[in-house]
């Protein structure tokens, strides 16, 4: 068992409870427009940060200021907590929002891509690749958030986050798995809160959520020596929630209640399961062979 009870409490329960509490406090304290944009973002990021820093404190790393680029993920996600809701302010056009996302994505990539000599010669290519990719994922995910209300979407995101943590665990880094796991736990708190605030829109947290998932996979891919987990696993998982677009029309869009909900999340769930399955099989094969 790679995780201890303390890991579960700090990296699982604490983020979920904090996210739940922040969601309701933010919606009560902030004005309606601000609450709609900030509540999801604040709940996700403060919940995630609570788990992240509790685990950090438990692991006694001996330093608090970031030492490696991967240490910056928590700070980049925290920046997205403010940046995401701001670009959803009324009056900001889609084009302007896309530009802001690209700017944010490039900055995030510049901070997260390692600076060690082996990466340095082509580091700018990674930055130029990851930045627009993160922006595109967040932009497309905005549309998903606008179209799907209720606990279905945060539930799917929780599942995606857990699968992401699982892949990071299979790649051999427990601390990265705990980092993304804390985000998944915070998303589970938001899922629960959506049972009472069914009509809330989650687009305010779109950027923070995509930064966490894409950034988690980026640091996992760049900072582990694992040779068994397929590259596709790192790339497909953060894109899985975008498959919700396929549920807007056609047979997957039909049906109501539990069955209808399951049909809408079927494609992303299958994609996540396949990706985790491939990573697990690759690990087992390596162990056997």
């Amino acid at each position, binding site marked *: 068992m*790679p995780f*201890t009870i303390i890991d579960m409490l700090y990296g699982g329960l604490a983020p979920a409870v904090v996210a739940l509490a922040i969601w309701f406090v933010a919606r009560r304290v902030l004005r309606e427009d601000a609450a709609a944009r900030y509540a999801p973002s604040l709940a996700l990021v403060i919940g995630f940060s609570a788990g992240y820093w509790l685990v950090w404190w438990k*692991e006694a790393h001996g330093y608090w200021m970031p030492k490696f680029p991967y240490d910056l993920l928590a700070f980049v996600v925290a920046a997205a907590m403010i940046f995401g809701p701001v670009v959803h302010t009324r009056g900001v056009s889609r084009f302007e929002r896309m530009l802001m996302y690209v700017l944010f994505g490039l900055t995030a990539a510049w901070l997260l891509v390692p600076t060690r000599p082996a990466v340095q010669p082509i580091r700018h290519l990674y930055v130029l690749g990851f930045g627009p990719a993160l922006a595109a994922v967040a932009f497309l995910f905005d549309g998903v958030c606008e179209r799907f209300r209720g606990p279905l979407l945060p539930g799917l995101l929780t599942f995606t986050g857990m699968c992401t943590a699982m892949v990071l665990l299979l790649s051999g880094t427990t601390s990265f798995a705990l980092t993304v796991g804390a985000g998944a736990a915070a998303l589970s708190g938001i899922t629960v809160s959506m049972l009472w605030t069914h009509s809330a829109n989650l687009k305010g947290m779109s950027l923070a959520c995509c930064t966490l998932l894409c950034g988690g996979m980026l640091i996992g891919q760049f900072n582990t020596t*694992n040779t068994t987990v397929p590259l596709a696993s790192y790339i497909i998982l953060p894109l899985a929630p975008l498959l919700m677009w396929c549920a807007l029309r056609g047979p997957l869009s039909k049906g109501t209640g539990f069955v209808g909900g399951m049909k809408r999340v079927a494609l992303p769930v299958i994609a996540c399961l396949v990706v985790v399955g491939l990573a697990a099989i690759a*690990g087992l094969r390596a162990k056997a062979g």
Partner: protein
Amino acid sequence: MRIFSSSMLVLALFVMGCDAEMGEQRTSGSSSGSAPTTDAGGDSLTSSGTTGDTGTTDDSSATDDAGTSDDAGSTAGAAIADGEVALTPDNTDVVFIGTHADPAKPDPRTCEFTDFDGTATVEDGALTAVSVTIQTEGITTFNPMLTDHLRNPDFFNALEYPEAKFESTSIEAGEDGTVTITGDLTLLAETKPVTFPATVSTEDGLTLNAEFTIDRTEWGMTARQDGVLKEVELQIIIGG
């Protein structure tokens, strides 16, 4: 729809670029992993069985490139040439044993460094200096997933800290072939002094046998202490 298409195009380009670059990274990773693989000693060694069971690297190479003629199966030590012994995985084992924190299920895990080089200096029949540089990505265990976990940021962080070093600062002779070796151990870019006893013979080549324990947290390897004990047993065997 146009925005959707152009976004997917950007993504596809990134994925293709990523795939090509990552392929290179993976190839280099696996090549170092395949360096002199050994039977790393089974999955549940007890400390009493470590020396014999840790699996030496030289089962198929009686003579190495450095010209030494040692063999794990023989009793001859590592060959001394001009007062120096080239330490390689062919004549030296550098092994560490981590133990789980659960006292009911300690499951000691034996791990071996398979990529290192160094020098031992022998003057007038006495060992006077030892220095070894270890490539941390060359860790090998019985389980590829455990090997990955040890190489990654939770433990050795081999990509950020590719080298670990030991350099002796003094070697004091004791009785009956025992010596006390003091030196600087560099791990995760932290350099700390360590002192440990060893049994040394230079009669038929150099043989050295040392077993000691370090506290990994002193070098900043603090992660997962609730899962793996901070005390790590080290074994260094030259020649035997």
